[in-house]
């Protein structure tokens, strides 16, 4: 057996107790094996069967549905009988536009095997082929950025939607992101449109400054600090800006500074402003927009509305890293270090032959690399897995 698959199997044999899926009998399960076979529409009766299946198959990827079905094993979605679906939010570092996420980027030519650092060129400099593979990597800064989004998401879910604690399930995907599921009964029955609305709420996409700083005739109504949602967040942050600017520390647009006293009263007590200038309205709306931009949660909006999604089984191994898709409590999330805490594979030494440049990286507190392409290195399985699964090395 492929030593990597053997390592996965060892993990599932030893750590099967940590595999946990609530209401498992109603879920669709999907696995992808090491030879690339996709097995869909699997249904298991209980956790024991799921754990046994993972230990037996040692799949490269293992997923379960957000949907709860009457017949999870039915081949077609329409036949499954959807009873409800958890609301899923997907945070993927690739969507964050963070420079750190390009750390260790490399490419390899699929025709001749030539490789190099950075963004893939248009054509292979050695053989001219245009069939080049983009190879990404994991970096701590990138994962940290994703974690910050997840923490902000949890804050919004708690304050606005009133979901917290055991109504939520948070997990690191095992790769470059986080998933948050709302388990609570009252959200299970939401349709596609409703889920979309939730997605555009947390991502601030449906925010409209003209609604929040609302002008009718000569009266400007502002949000108030005691309100909830984006209105409250904007009001609180603006009030803080206005109060700080009292000491001349923060520069406010002059239109805003001129009516500072009235604005403070509006934000605190809801007293509307009479005869606002056009510049004032424009500047306030722009400030509101900036606050939302800074605090919005950058989720993948296509994921949330889709009730037929599958995500990784908590504590299963990710087939692109060998890291655990770890279920976390909101408190655990704050101090969570994916490249340390989510390591699931063993320390057993294995020899890896690199086929592309490997950047310097740290797993479990230990530094590895950088390695040139075409060298053989002896590494613990958890570090070797990263190189192998990221397509930058082979077992000789």
């Amino acid at each position: 057996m492929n030593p990597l698959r053997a390592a996965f199997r060892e993990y599932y044999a030893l750590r099967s107790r940590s595999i946990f899926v609530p209401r498992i009998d109603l879920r669709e399960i999907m696995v992808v094996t090491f030879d690339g076979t996709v097995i869909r529409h699997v249904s298991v009766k209980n956790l024991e069967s799921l754990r046994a299946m993972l230990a037996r198959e040692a799949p490269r990827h293992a997923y379960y549905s957000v949907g709860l079905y009457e017949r999870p094993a039915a081949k077609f979605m329409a036949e499954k009988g959807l009873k409800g679906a958890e609301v899923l939010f997907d945070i993927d570092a690739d969507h964050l536009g963070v420079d750190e996420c390009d750390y260790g980027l490399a490419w390899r030519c699929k025709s001749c095997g030539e490789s190099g650092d950075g963004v893939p060129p248009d054509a292979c400099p050695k053989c001219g082929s245009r069939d080049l593979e983009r190879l990404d990597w994991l970096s701590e800064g990138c994962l940290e950025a994703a974690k910050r989004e997840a923490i902000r998401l949890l804050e919004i879910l708690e304050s606005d939607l009133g979901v917290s604690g055991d109504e939520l399930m948070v997990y690191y995907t095992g790769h470059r992101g986080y998933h948050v599921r709302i388990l609570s009964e009252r959200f299970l029955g939401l349709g596609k449109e409703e889920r979309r609305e939730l997605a555009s709420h947390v991502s601030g996409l449906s925010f409209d400054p003209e609604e929040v700083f609302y002008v009718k005739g000569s009266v400007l109504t502002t949000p108030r600090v005691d309100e909830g949602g984006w209105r409250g967040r904007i009001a609180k942050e603006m009030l803080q800006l206005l109060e700080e600017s009292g000491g001349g520390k923060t520069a406010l647009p002059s239109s805003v500074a001129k009516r500072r006293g009235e604005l403070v009263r509006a934000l605190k007590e809801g007293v509307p402003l009479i005869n606002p200038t056009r510049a004032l309205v424009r500047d306030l709306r722009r400030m509101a927009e900036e606050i939302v931009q800074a605090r919005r949660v950058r989720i993948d909006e296509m994921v949330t509305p889709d009730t037929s999604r599958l995500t990784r089984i908590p504590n299963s191994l990710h087939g692109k890293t060998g890291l655990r898709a770890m279920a976390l409590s909101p408190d655990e999330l704050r101090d969570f270090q994916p490249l340390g805490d989510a390591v699931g594979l063993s320390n057993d030494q294995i020899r890896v032959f690199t086929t592309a440049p490997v950047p310097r990286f740290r797993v479990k507190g230990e530094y590895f690399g950088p390695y040139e392409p075409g060298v053989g290195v002896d590494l613990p399985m958890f570090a070797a897995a990263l190189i192998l699964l990221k397509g930058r090395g082979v077992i000789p």
Partner: protein
Amino acid sequence: MEELDPALASRYPFTSLGERLIESEGLTEEDLAYDPLLEQSRRHARGRLLSAVSGGLYLDDLYLPPLDAVATYLIVRLVSSWIGDPFLNRLVAEHESKRFHRLARDEPIHILAWLGGELGAAIRPDGERAWIDISSYLRAAAGLGGPKWRLANRDVRSGQVLVGRRELARLLQELLRAHLLEPTPCPSLSPPLRAIGTEVIRRLEERKASIQSSGPSRQTLPPCIEKLVEKAERGENMSHQERFTLAAYLLKVGWSVDRVVDLFRSAPDFKERVARYQVSHIAKRGYNPPNCETLRSWGICVEDCGVKSPLSYGRRGRRRR
């Protein structure tokens, strides 16, 4: 809450007050079909169904005694379930919920809170406004157009959304619509009610025939627009953004105002005058359909088809050929 006036069943026959009345009176399908005292209920039910089909609003039976009002409502529902046509069901749901809104919009907040409870929402009055549980809010508001309904622009705290009295009535209209669209078993009907049904079917077929299927050429449509065309043809309820996107796109690719208006003819709330005004307005201003990023945020985008605006999809398609 204080004791409810039983006369409310006359305005809101779908509630538990209505159900209790049916039970206490032992009302059966046979009574609805043959009882001479319920003749006016049969007449009004027919009027309501035909109004639904023609897109009107039937208000001749606003002040019936509770039992007659409940009977009328039951006949409307029985006959439409018997016909079992999804397009008719949407027309009836549109008509009945609009009729409901006409009555509910002037109710005091505590009556609206009670109605909300009847429709499965948890509503807590707060002065002249009320807090509605977020799931119900989403169910009701997700299909409504306009930025004021978007959650991001509202006071939302711990799973509750603050709404004004009029807004609440509007939300309840949507909840009632959804309730009416839930599938019902097909009943067997006695001849007098079947006769009403047959007449409704005839009018329904006439309306369907008047909707010319203008059949846009499907190959050149981007997937999002194709989806919208299908939705319009099936007469599904479409959000404001969806209607705008569809109209703006089709006008830009050369459809006439008439042809676009025809496409919307299946909509349950279709009004020739309103639709024509809106579509002509878009045509006159020459609005472009939103770009893909906006469509994605509105949830209209269905797949990544590799363009930045739905309009360039068509262009690329033409170039390829």
